[in-house]
């Protein structure tokens, strides 16, 4: 009898292992364990070498609104993080976006490979090497593809520029990172008329990257190669159409049809109408007005003269 119970027990225990509780916890349930601490908004520490505050916080609201919302934390991070305190060896954990993003066909349209090669040629990588990673600009826990989906260009600008300004708006951070005391952005951009308007309407990368990229360019250029010629944007063939307005134009074309999109485009920002027929039309209207005015003037002068003659 004893033996039977023992066997039964063994069977039950074994079956529990073979058919584990069939309901696998959802990603959200799983992540909850990590969020017990990591949802604290100020979780972090002051880095001993740089003095910069390193945040370890992942805000659940941001995460579940990000592109990575379906993932479990350990999809990217080591499974060893499930133990607490986290093992010391994990401090050197080295994550890289392309581990996941390289070969997957569904990511093809984002051109991760060309992003990688652009990044390798960018000024950040050239100056700082492997010390500079994707995560220095993009927080994977709140990353949300932006330019492609956002209808409001100004929002895109705000979101994107925030990424750059996190470091570049603070001269002491830049000094810590580059060893150079650089002038503030307002000083280095003082040649630009209406600086504040530009800040709000153009992304840093629109002038500071090479424009010939399939997606959003990641080839950040050294400052002497940045766009400094007004006409490059404020013209018919504005480079902004290749970058900032690329997705907006495409979207609008899809939504409102080609002609409408071309006519209703937010053309003032770029500075010149890009439709030949509209240009022609406005010249014709202008000509007609001019002719009408001069005819009217001549007639008035004639009739006045006639009145004088009568008197």
């Amino acid at each position, binding site marked *: 009898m004893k033996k039977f119970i023992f066997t039964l027990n063994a069977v039950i225990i074994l079956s529990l292992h073979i058919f584990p509780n069939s309901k696998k916890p959802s990603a959200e349930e799983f992540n909850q364990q990590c969020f*017990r*601490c990591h949802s*604290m*908004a*100020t*979780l*972090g*520490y*002051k880095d001993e070498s740089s003095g910069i*505050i390193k945040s*370890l*916080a992942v805000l659940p609201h941001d995460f579940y609104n990000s592109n990575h919302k379906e993932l479990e934390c350990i999809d990217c991070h080591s499974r060893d993080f499930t133990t*607490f*305190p986290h093992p010391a060896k994990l401090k050197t954990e080295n994550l890289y976006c392309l581990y996941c993003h390289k070969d997957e066909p569904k990511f093809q349209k984002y051109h991760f490979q060309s992003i990688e090669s652009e990044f390798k040629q960018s000024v950040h990588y050239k100056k700082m090497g492997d010390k500079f990673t994707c995560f220095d600009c993009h927080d994977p826990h709140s990353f949300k593809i932006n330019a492609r989906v956002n209808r409001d260009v100004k929002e895109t600008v705000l979101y994107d520029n925030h990424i750059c300004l996190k470091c570049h708006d603070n001269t002491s951070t830049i000094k810590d990172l580059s060893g150079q005391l650089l002038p503030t952005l307002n000083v280095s951009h003082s040649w630009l008329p209406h600086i504040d308007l530009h800040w709000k309407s153009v992304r840093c990368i629109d002038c500071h990257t090479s424009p010939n990229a399939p997606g959003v360019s990641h080839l950040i250029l050294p400052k002497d190669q940045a766009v400094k010629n007004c006409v490059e944007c404020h013209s018919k063939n504005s480079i902004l159409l290749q970058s900032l307005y690329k997705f907006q134009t495409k979207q609008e074309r899809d939504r409102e049809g080609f002609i409408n999109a071309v006519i209703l485009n937010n053309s003032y920002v770029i500075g010149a109408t890009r439709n030949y027929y509209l240009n022609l039309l406005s010249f014709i209207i202008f000509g007609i007005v001019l002719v009408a005015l001069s005819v009217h003037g001549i007639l008035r002068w004639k009739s006045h003269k006639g009145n004088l003659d009568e008197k």
Partner: protein
Amino acid sequence: MKIKYFKIPKTKTGKLILILFVIFVLGGIFTQFLYEPLFEWYTGVKNGKLTYDSSIKLTDEEFNSLSKELTYQDRLQRAEEMTKNEKDPFTRKVKMEMLMNTPSFIHQTKFNHIKYFRDAGIRQYKGPETCLKCHEDITVRHADGSTTKVNTLDDIINSVHFQFQRRAAGFSTYGFDGKQVNENTRPIPVGKIDRACGIPGSFSWTGWADLIKTKPDSLHGKTLLRSEGCGQCHIGGNYQPATEDMMPFGNVPESAKEGIDCLICHSQTYDMNEKYVIKDNVGLRWNEDRSMKAAMTVTKPTNTNCLYCHQHNFGGDTYSGNVAAHNLGYKNPRILHAGAKRGMPFSPEEDVHAAAGVQCLDCHVPEGHKIPRGTKGTDLVANDLPNKSVACENCHTSAPHTKNELERVILNGHVARVACETCHIPYLRDDNVVLRDWVHPTYNKEEGMYVYTDILKSGKPDIGFNYFWYNGNGTFLAGALGNNPNKSDRYDPLMDQMTNITNPEALLEIKTNVKNDFNMNDEQALKYMQAVTNTLSQLSSGMVAEREKDITEHLTSISNLGDSKIYPFKLFNAYMYEDMSNQGPFGAMILPFDYPTYYETGNTLEAMKTAIKNPIIKRMYQYPFKKYMMDDFMRYFGVKTWSDVYPIDNKGNLRNIQPHWMRQFGTLMLNHSIKKEGLACASCHSPNGILDFKKLGYSAERIKDLTHLKELKYFKTNTKEVKVTKVNSKKIILSKR
């Protein structure tokens, strides 16, 4: 022929010009000559030339010997430093003597005004007039780095330190009608000037400067005159607070400006023994130190200056580190108030910043004579710079903990939800007063006068202070507003923990004190306790329902503003007479006491009656004041309109007056007496921790998690060597690092 000197103009325009001219002239006469006497007659304020006995002219010899005396320590130190390599002691002595008497050596001192006065021939300090000779304008540096030049006298006259009021917006206070004080509405003057308060038991008009006849035991029946009143801590030196500034027009009279006490904030040798009440032909006022000695040591304000007055609200009058309290006056010594307002001294012994030599103005960075008190506040105190932050994170950043690798991260994580003060002010001093009964005074033989009875004093959490969610805003009656970030409706302190006392240790102490102080039996004591341990029991059920409605409709949305954190708040309640014609669901207008009657006779009803006969209180109950400010004031208070039924009827009898406890405890922010060692994890994260997670609005599931943290054991290393301070039925564990 009769010459017409004056002819009434015939044309319409002519008549209009004449009428305007007459109005202009009459208006000019009114404002120049009639307004002031009329105003004084109406409000009972008094003004006169202010003179001070300590303003004495020195001879050159006196000036020189005084300057040597004042710089002696400084010169000695420098001479010692310069001669430290001299081995022969006698040679060193001779060298030091020479150095110390060299003119340039005498001039190089931190008291640079000695040289200025010497050169300008100033040998007498005459008050602001002396200062303004050189400092007519000052350059004010603003937070954004810009500067402006302002008139010094205007700058100080328009500061809260002089006015105790603010008419503009900029209060973090919300009325019980849901309106932010003075925001998007007709602004009224609000601040200490018109805020009756239960801690001092009076307010600034009725208790500005008084002389009290006391009969201390030590004098065997002889009378000792003592000074008392709000004026002792305020920089104006005249017969009342700046009443003129409350009015729609009118300005502080020139004579009042003469009373400004520049030196109490700027002199390093100010003699607090000169602060006592003096009586002159006009009335009672506070004396000042206007000696040349005090003027010669003028510098920027140091902690000593601020603490002459402010230690009163931090450590209290009877705190041994209160310097002013050891210098009570050459004449009519000031009365000391037992029972500290907050019980958290700013002193090297009690505060880690004071110990590190941090100056008040390092955190409260002034702009001219405007001094910021931070963007948060529950009490109705006017703020000169309401948008200027004074906060721990301005220096400590959002990652203040740096020591242990594992711990610092988690501790920094708490910063988002838990204020620094919550852990780093683990206890207050024991004399922190929580319950003060003004209606039943006790005779103090040592002092020889009747004093209020403090029936609960405590520095322990859950008794002397408690923890609330706080988003920086407060109610009109000093209640912290905020909510658990889960935005649940479980957290409702204005119906719950701000209205009752449930801590068994507190209940026992109140009962013991009440029985001893008032000679009550058990039954009487229990009855007495009911009102204060459940303050809502003083309201009718209709009023309670109205209160709940007001909270839901007007305050919930304000509590949900911003990001709340858990903060510690000192608790306070007072038993005082109230004008029941002006009662709402959150309380009634409390009535002040006349200090001499109160302290000398202990007849509290008579003391209150005397105080409300003060002309300005009478005016409060009349039409212009009702319309000008009382209606608005009471709307914030949760009372629809101000009832102008004066509490004394035509026959001189009191009407509609009852003694009551406030309907909820006041909660005052705690920001000083910061301890280096904060609370350890287990102080809160244990089933019997000092935070009542349930009352703080957490769900049952979350409470279970918070009180049984499975990770806690890894932080045990730090609680192993803890200093356990048994200050409570719940114990506080201080972390020791």
